[in-house]
């Protein structure tokens, strides 16, 4: 039995995970109603991450799988992160060299003080 099904999990685990997922959903929805500035995306994405991990580890049995399976699970995400990080490396540094024109929305080191525009 154990040879065939290394991943029979107590049903209680599924129930707990399900309840946790729904509670996290509720929390995520609630937090989105608050005005937390830059922390809003942190919470929404953080909770989504926790939900994903719960599903991967328990519902998709990664916790009970071989190292090989874990490598393949991780690979997809790692490759996605590579794609995002290296593309954003371009987008976030465009135009940050003086004289080079970029999309001009980020300048890490302004060379002069900002202009002081009158308030309307």
């Amino acid at each position, binding site marked *: 039995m154990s040879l065939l099904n290394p991943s029979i999990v107590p049903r209680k685990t599924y129930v707990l995970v399900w309840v946790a997922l729904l509670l996290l959903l509720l929390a995520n929805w609630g937090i989105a109603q608050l005005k937390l500035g830059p922390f809003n995306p942190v919470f929404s994405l953080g909770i989504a991450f926790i939900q994903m991990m719960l599903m991967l580890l328990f519902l998709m049995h990664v916790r009970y799988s071989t190292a090989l399976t874990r490598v393949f699970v991780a690979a997809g995400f790692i490759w996605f992160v590579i794609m995002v990080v290296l593309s954003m490396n371009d987008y976030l540094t465009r*135009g940050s*060299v*003086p*004289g*080079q*024109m*970029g*999309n*001009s*929305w*980020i*300048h890490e080191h*302004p*060379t*002069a*003080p*900002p*202009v*002081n*525009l*009158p*308030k*309307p």
Partner: protein
Amino acid sequence: MTFPLVPVQASEVARETDHLCIALVCASAIVCLIVFGPMFFFLFKYRNGHPADRSPVNLPQTKIEITWTVLPLLIFMCFYAWGARQYFNIERPPPGAMEIDVVGQQWMWKIQHPEGNREINELHVPAGRIIKLMMTSQDVIHDFYLPAFRTKQDVLPGRYTVQWFKADKIGSYHLFCSEYCGTSHAQMIGRIVVMSPADYQHWLANGEPGPTMVQSGERLFRELGCSGCHMGSTVVRAPPLQGVFGRPVPLNNGDVVMADEGYIRDSILLPAKQIVGGYTNDMPSYSGHLTEEQVMELIAYIKSLGNQSPTGTQ
């Protein structure tokens, strides 16, 4: 019949790029000797039927592997650094450049000099001056390629890219569009004419007399009604533009951006993208109402305002 190997070198950058290339050719030749020399020797010596000592020897395999991993890596890093340094030279226009605007369109190059002279598929420049090209495209992606200066830069719709060169050899050189742009891609060619400064002045004066870029921009600024909100004492709903160009501007969302050509362009065509701190998005978009040349004229005018002192004080 001639077999040219290297294109004309008409700038310092071209010569430096060629030096790098020659160095790489030499390095490659050495590598070929190192690989193919022993290879042919082994092929000859150990060919079947030829008596030779074929008994196994214990070579220090790991040491050999590490040697031919690390040595190439070190050499590669040298070339990387050299290429990167030169790339910085190519990509960063030095200060004090003379700016010329380029608009690419299927399948021609339209060029505007600050003095108001316009030309098509030809670019006249004085020798010895740093020329900075401010480029954009009206339709698809093009690429402004000047083999004599070893520089090229894609010309994209919807934003500005820049490229610079300093010609030091009088003559007429190729201009190619090198990013595939449709049916007549191969016809999107022209020439760049490098003249002595005196000849250039002469050429400018003999061209069609017209308003300068700043003058054209100022007229547009009034005709389009920009001045109604951005000028004079009625500055209420829109930020004034004096002294803005080339300075960092604080935005509504807390970011700070540089008021460069790209920023001014976006503000005219996509006003909602970045809103100046304290203001609301009331400006209509001029996207579709202006040609790329007109946007460049407006920018030239706003740039000329950049030297004045900011009007509002707090």
